[in-house]
């Protein structure tokens, strides 16, 4: 995989990306945790968060991003997000309710607090899973070996032990 050399030499892009990426990430978190009061939620937040990181990768190279978020980590986070979602359901079962019955999460009060807690944790799971999946898809695209690359190995991807079958 080649570094996007021309993009790297564009100072305007680099400066703006450097300024924007943190804001985008913060906005992602806002959409995540404000989802129970306003428009938002895990899916959108995950997409925004991953988009922020992908912009980072587009300007500074996927290699740099891979040092921050390794390929293996995205795979683990994908699974962890789903597990977090499911775990809420299972915990609700253990507390005596049906699967995913959030009201059971808070047996003392009559429902609303449990509902609130349940939806926040579940959306967090969704957010993690979606962000990780989108980044994994991005890695799969940039890590895709073309014919000329095939002669030269792609050590970063192979070391990641999670490259896509080509």
């Amino acid at each position, binding site marked *: 995989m080649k570094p996007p050399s021309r993009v790297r030499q564009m100072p305007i892009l680099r400066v703006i990306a450097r300024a924007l990426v943190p804001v985008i990430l913060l906005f992602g978190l806002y959409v995540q945790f404000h989802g129970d009061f306003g428009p938002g939620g895990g899916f959108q937040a995950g997409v925004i968060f991953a988009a922020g990181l992908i912009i980072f990768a587009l300007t500074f190279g996927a290699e740099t991003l891979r040092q921050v978020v390794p390929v293996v980590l995205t*795979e*683990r986070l*994908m*699974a*962890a997000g*789903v*597990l977090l979602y*499911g*775990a809420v*359901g*299972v915990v609700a*079962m253990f507390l005596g*309710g*049906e*699967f*995913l*019955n*959030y*009201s*059971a999460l808070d047996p003392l009060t009559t429902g609303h607090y449990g509902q609130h807690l349940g939806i926040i944790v579940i959306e967090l799971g969704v957010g993690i899973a979606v962000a990780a999946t989108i980044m994994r898809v991005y890695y799969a695209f940039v890590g895709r070996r073309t014919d000329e690359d095939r002669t030269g190995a792609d050590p970063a991807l192979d070391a990641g*032990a*999670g490259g896509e*079958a080509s």
Partner: protein
Amino acid sequence: MIEKILVLEVVLPLLAAPVCVLVRHPRFCRLFSLGVVAACFAIAVALLVEVRGGGVISYQLGGWPPPLGIEYRVSTINAYLLALVTAMALVVFSFDSRGGPPRVPEQRRHLYYAVFLLCISGLLGIAITGDAFNIFVFLEISSLSSYILVSLGGHRRAVMSAFYYLVMGTIGGVFFMLGVGLLYQATGTLNLRDIAARLEPSLDDRGTVLALALLVVGISIKLAVFPLHHWLPNAYSFAPPKVSAFLAATATKVSFYLLAMVLFTIFGAPFVFEELRLQAVLLPLSILAMFLASGAAIFQTDLRRLLAYSSVAQIGYMTLGLSTANATGLAGGLVHLFNHAVMKGGLFLVVACLLYRVGSVHIDALAGIGRRMPLTSAALVIGGLSLIGVPGTVGFVSKWYLVSGVLERGWTAAAVLILLSSLLALVYVGKVVEVVYFRKPAETQPIDHVREAPLGMLAPAWVLAAAAVFFGLTTDWTYGVAREAAELLLAGGI
């Protein structure tokens, strides 16, 4: 107790999949998924025992009562299907394939198990849920994961056939989705029982008829009903053998349940079979499937393709049972789900044994294998006899009730055709048996080094072969349950 943990049937494999991805240890994943599948099987059997005799268990996901919330609803037919899928999953998972599919390296083996578990979860979800949209979601989960599983076969063409399967399967999924959408428009609900209660199908209502058409065509693609079967032979013959065994034994069976449920529960037998007269299409297609696919099987030179074409023919028997729309015929079709799963699952496991030892399942490569691998070949013969429908095997039970149902309906010609098509099965099974036992191995392909398959492979294959005989002799838990399910379907219930 069982009604409290019913949801675990789907949730266990669904959550076991990400656990496999997190742990990444191939041996752990193998044993863990085996344990999960065994637990699912236990739950399914407990459910079947519980609901047998007309019981119904309803479960409200998240505590939201139906029709607004998603309802999991288990009656005899669902429990029958759950037990079938989990039993087959258990046998296939206990099959020790010595290293998994050839193209999956050690460090990615955990993903293979995760995908397999997701596929099981999707199939179980379709069988258990009482919500139309939920069915679509699970249909996609099981389909997407089975495309991946098929693509893992060692051959280069595996990827191509998986892609073809994906295209066809997606078209089927979209058709199903459109049908559900039209039903939602007509009734304003997604709960299956609620749809059935509110829907008043009539031939003048084009929307409803269109919904039925879309649903039937969509499911028929997934089920591989005769002219829409083209994805199946490639998918089954290039998939890893374990995957072929599992998919052949379960995926089409679940689609058959879906078709039966749409026709009988949602639209109702009186509308579908008396007003619309769907059997005018379904019956000829079933008979064509029986003859053309069996005929195609005769000319195959690869054992896997032969079995795949035979699967298309067997699906013809099932849809034939469906089109009789009487209790005996429908029960014959439903019991054939189980019977065909047992024999075809067993045969594909035999294929896996042969592939492991011989390295090829081309007919010529199998010459004389009967002497070198007597137990494997014997299992092959039992499965083959069952495909023909020899008395004492499960194939006979299915055909007996199918023929009875067809005769009850007064279709004498169809009954004769069923029997004639068995002769075609005799030809393609006979061809294999002749090669395996009576032909001398070619000089160029010595088989002196070939030994009997290892026990970890042989035992699961023999479990299914033994089941093919056992359930050919006692039919209480197969035909008995299927009969109950058929009567339930005809009465419009689930």
